[in-house]
């Protein structure tokens, strides 16, 4: 198993009432409510949490980014990946990931990622995402070409990593007369690419066709099983067998010394989902052209208030479906066993705290996970044969059917 620590880096230090009065805490909620003094404190607390996660035994730190919203104050995952490349020594730096369509220069991203890979001595896992709907607006990027830009930027980055320059790129969305970045990744054939997602079938199919592991972001167990059915069927049609090394899952999981405290803190997972301050705006979260045409009716009705958020569910439902797991180490382990037995992922991210969970409670949670939960899960993983891509020496991709290794080790 590959066990990762994750936080959204919530920026809860802002006047909540302002968000409620405005009606949404996304995109257009004024950044005059951002408090840089609290921001500076929180960034440093999160850095402390990441180092603690490495110290207590996590295998990886998962990073992401979002824009114009308090639920996530990490605006560039490559920046924290750079910090952690130097501030940690062992953990994989798993970026899930860089929102490719938001980039106007994917070659620049390829360079940044190569630098992170070299500074971290080959610990980079470079995931790619489409970016949220509102982020297309925050970046001024055309939502109607989101998927085309995602696919083209990915092709360009992999080529920049794997083929000697200079070469020329004349694509539909990116044109570069000279592609020849001096820095290239330490890992060969190239750093592993994992693809996270939550809703779009197109992304699952795309990842499976590339033979990239797919990381299901906190979906309900039944929905997760459907994702693996689809992934495995595409894998079979592509000519390989799906299985645990292609399956990742991000689990909201808060542990504390008592059941009561864990449940109370787990309520904070709803903080970014609209129950407390409201995350999504029904229009800004789903600009035309961004979502899959097969969901057009659902999103159109959501946009005018005729149905609830297709992405949302109540706290109690999420507890029941195990989209949120909370308790003492002793009570969460059987629940996580059920998740592993039923969906068989080898990559498991722990989204451990959210919202207003205190610094002390967040650290206690990381410590308890590391000391009590992770060892139990490693045993369960062995028992169930859940070998991670690293343990299984899985290929980087269909195109590069070999594991990623340091260029130093290969020479």
């Amino acid at each position: 198993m590959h066990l990762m620590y994750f936080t959204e880096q919530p920026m809860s230090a802002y006047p909540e009432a302002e968000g409620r009065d405005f009606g949404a805490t996304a995109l257009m909620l004024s950044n005059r409510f951002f408090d840089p003094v609290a921001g500076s404190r929180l960034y440093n607390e999160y850095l402390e949490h990441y180092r603690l996660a490495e110290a207590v035994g996590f295998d990886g730190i998962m990073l992401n980014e979002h824009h114009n919203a308090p639920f996530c104050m990490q605006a560039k995952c490559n920046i924290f990946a750079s910090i952690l490349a130097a501030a940690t020594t062992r953990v994989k730096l798993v970026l899930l990931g860089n929102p490719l369509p938001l980039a106007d220069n994917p070659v620049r991203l390829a360079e940044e990622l190569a630098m992170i890979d070299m500074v971290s001595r080959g610990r980079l896992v470079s995931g790619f995402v489409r970016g949220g709907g509102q982020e297309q607006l925050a970046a001024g990027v055309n939502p109607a070409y989101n998927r085309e830009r995602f696919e083209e930027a990915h092709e360009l980055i992999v080529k920049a990593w794997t083929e000697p320059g200079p070469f020329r790129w004349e694509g539909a969305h990116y044109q570069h007369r000279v592609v020849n970045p001096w820095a290239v990744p330490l890992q060969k054939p190239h750093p592993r690419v994992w693809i996270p997602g939550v809703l779009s079938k197109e992304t699952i199919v795309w990842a499976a066709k590339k033979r990239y592991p797919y990381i299901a972001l906190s979906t309900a167990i039944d929905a997760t099983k459907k994702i693996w059915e689809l992934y495995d069927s595409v894998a079979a049609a592509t000519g390989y067998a799906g299985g645990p090394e292609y399956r990742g899952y991000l689990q909201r999981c808060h542990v504390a010394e008592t059941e009561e405290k864990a449940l109370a803190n787990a309520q904070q997972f709803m903080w970014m989902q609209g129950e407390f301050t409201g995350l999504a705006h029904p229009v800004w979260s789903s600009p035309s052209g961004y979502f899959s045409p097969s969901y057009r009716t659902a999103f159109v009705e959501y946009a005018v208030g005729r149905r609830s958020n297709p992405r949302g569910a109540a706290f109690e439902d999420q507890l029941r479906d195990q989209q949120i797991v909370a308790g003492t180490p002793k009570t969460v382990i059987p629940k996580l066993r059920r998740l592993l037995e039923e969906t068989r992922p080898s990559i498991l991210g722990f989204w451990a705290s959210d919202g207003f969970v205190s610094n002390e409670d967040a650290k206690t949670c990381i410590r308890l996970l590391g000391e009590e939960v992770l060892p139990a899960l490693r045993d369960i993983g062995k028992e169930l044969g859940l070998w991670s891509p690293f343990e299984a020496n899985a290929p980087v991709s269909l195109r590069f059917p070999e594991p990623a290794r340091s260029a130093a080790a290969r020479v």
Partner: protein
Amino acid sequence: MTSTTITWESETVPIAGAALHVARAGAGAPLLVLHHDVGSLERLPFYDALARRFTVLVPSHPGYDKSERPDWLRSVRDVAVLYQWLLAERELTRDPGRVSLLGLGFGGWIAAEMATMAPRAFRRLVLVGAMGLKPERGEIADQALLSYIDYVRRGFADPRVFDRIFGAEPQTSVLEQWDLNREMTFRIAWKPYMYNPTLGRLLGSVATPALVVWGREDRIVPLECGEGYQKALAHARLEVLDGAGHFVELEKPDELAQLVTRFVTEA
């Protein structure tokens, strides 16, 4: 206005490999009517009124309503070229000075681009609440930030007219079409949003007499853009209609039809 029923016919014209839907009615000099970014209802009293004096052609823009989406289309100038193609295909521009252009909102931008491409080809140019020019002081409303209903409502001075035409709560099928049209608008007019920074300069070549009409309460495209068109075009007059917003043809169909008819038919 007479109540004679107008007979509309429609045809599908292949232009640049995509099927363009064109509705047609009436007789007389040809008038190409270009609709808004949200598309158009098939029949409007305003279209009927025009068809009593002109051969009216109302195409659905490529990728809007009943017209097929050309995936490669990238700009409003591309659309303008497709309409030049359509007119040439129908031999309407063989003799200059026959066809007149009437552009509503977003369609006004397309009409203005067409005029710059052929400065003497058209008889008359009518722009109503046209996008296409960058406002100096205000902003063109950003539909990406507004729900389908709120955006269209914003285009009316009188909310009751919206209710009468679309219903207070439009059906989901209507919203889906607005979404498809919005997606197409994003595909061709995302950045800069709803204007062409070079259009103002290019309009200097246009010799065609132009009428610029604006609803005084247009909250989609500010009136200053109407003033901008009047200044940029050599032979333009600006008419501002009270009690109308952006969708002048829906709120003041008779007044607008009379203005257009008089302007296009006068010697």
